[in-house]
């Protein structure tokens, strides 16, 4: 049986070196590029000639734009409009990486199944939250961790817990996405090997491969759902964290 982890292997396509650091163009880089180009095509076609009565492409882009805008309106409020481009970028990038990785093709790769990529995205979110928080509130930003109407001892204890939870946010954000993507692809691969193993039963060829194949079809639908939901969750948590930075509760 093929190793289900093999699909996550990073393969160097073009070795590169910048100031002593290895920045080789890998299959992960390639699929991030594919995701970026797909998004660029989607956005440039959709906004080529913006009209009051939108074309189909424009309506599609507008739908996503309004989706993100509504999410920020609900979670952050009026000040959230400034972060629409950022949250939109994160949402579509994660969504594109998740969906493109589900292409049933041997060369397909999911950059978001790697903790490096998800951690990088989470770091961007964390950095923006810290910058916005300190820029708007200065050191008052720390009052985010302080419980209201608590005595000093309990307050200090809660402050410590809240602070640690705040610092762990980028890791939970990164691991949630990476784990979901990895688990889904492992599951698909495991059932894929079942198809081959059971289908090649000598006495009754193909017959027993049908069942794991059907499971794989169902799993693909589930993984499509998870790909969308995880992109949504990532964007939603980003806007919730931004709300903390903008409004301090």
């Amino acid at each position, binding site marked *: 049986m093929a190793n289900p982890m093999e699909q996550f292997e990073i393969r160097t396509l073009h070795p590169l070196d910048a100031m002593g650091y290895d920045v080789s163009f890998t299959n992960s880089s390639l699929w991030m590029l594919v995701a970026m180009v797909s*998004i660029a095509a989607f*956005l*440039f076609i959709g906004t080529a000639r913006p009209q009051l009565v939108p074309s189909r492409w424009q309506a599609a882009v507008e739908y996503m734009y309004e989706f993100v805008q509504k999410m920020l309106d609900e979670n952050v409020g009026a000040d959230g409009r400034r972060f629409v481009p950022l949250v939109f970028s994160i949402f579509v990038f994660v969504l594109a990486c998740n969906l493109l990785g589900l292409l049933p093709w041997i060369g397909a790769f999911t950059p978001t199944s790697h903790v490096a*990529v998800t951690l990088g*995205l989470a770091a961007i979110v964390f950095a923006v939250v810290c910058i916005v928080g300190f820029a708007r509130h200065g050191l008052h930003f720390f009052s985010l961790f302080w419980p209201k109407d608590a005595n000093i001892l309990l307050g200090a204890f809660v402050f410590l817990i809240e602070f640690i939870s705040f610092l762990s946010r980028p890791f939970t954000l990164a691991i949630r996405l990476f784990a979901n993507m990895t688990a889904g692809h492992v599951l698909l691969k495991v059932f894929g090997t079942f198809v081959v193993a059971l289908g090649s039963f000598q006495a009754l060829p193909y017959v027993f491969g049908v069942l794991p194949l059907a499971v794989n079809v169902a799993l693909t639908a589930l993984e499509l759902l998870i790909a969308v939901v995880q992109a949504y969750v990532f964007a939603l948590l980003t806007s919730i964290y931004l709300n903390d930075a903008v409004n301090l509760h």
Partner: protein
Amino acid sequence: MPQFDFATFVPQLAWLTAFFAILYFGIVRFTLPKLGRVMTAREDQVTGDIATAERAKAEADNIQAAYDEGIAEARERARATLADSKAQVGRSVEARLAAAGEEVDARLKTAEAALEQARAKAMTSIESIAAEASADIVERFTGKRPTPSVAAKAAKAAVAAH
């Protein structure tokens, strides 16, 4: 797990940073504001259209009210005119009836007067005929004819006593 091969972190993060920067600054910040402007313009147009429609409706309501008022006024006027002319007709009929009644009265009076005259005339002719006849009767009985004045007197007295 290849995910925890830390040697691959640097190239992945480097390309992620590059692509995400291009995506954010070069694509999203370049295209989304165009769409945002169009969406705002659309919203403005829709709210403007709604306001225009509301104004038109208010205007239509005003016209309707003015029309209703005009209709009611015209109806009132027509009713007043009708009552007026009815009263006028009534008055003129009364006047003509009164005039006709007077004329009838006058003619009645002249007719009565003529009748009275004729009656008086007839009375006197009856008296003379009676005097003549009684004179004839007296002459037959007595053979002597009374004078006309005596006969007339006696006839007059008889007629009056009758």
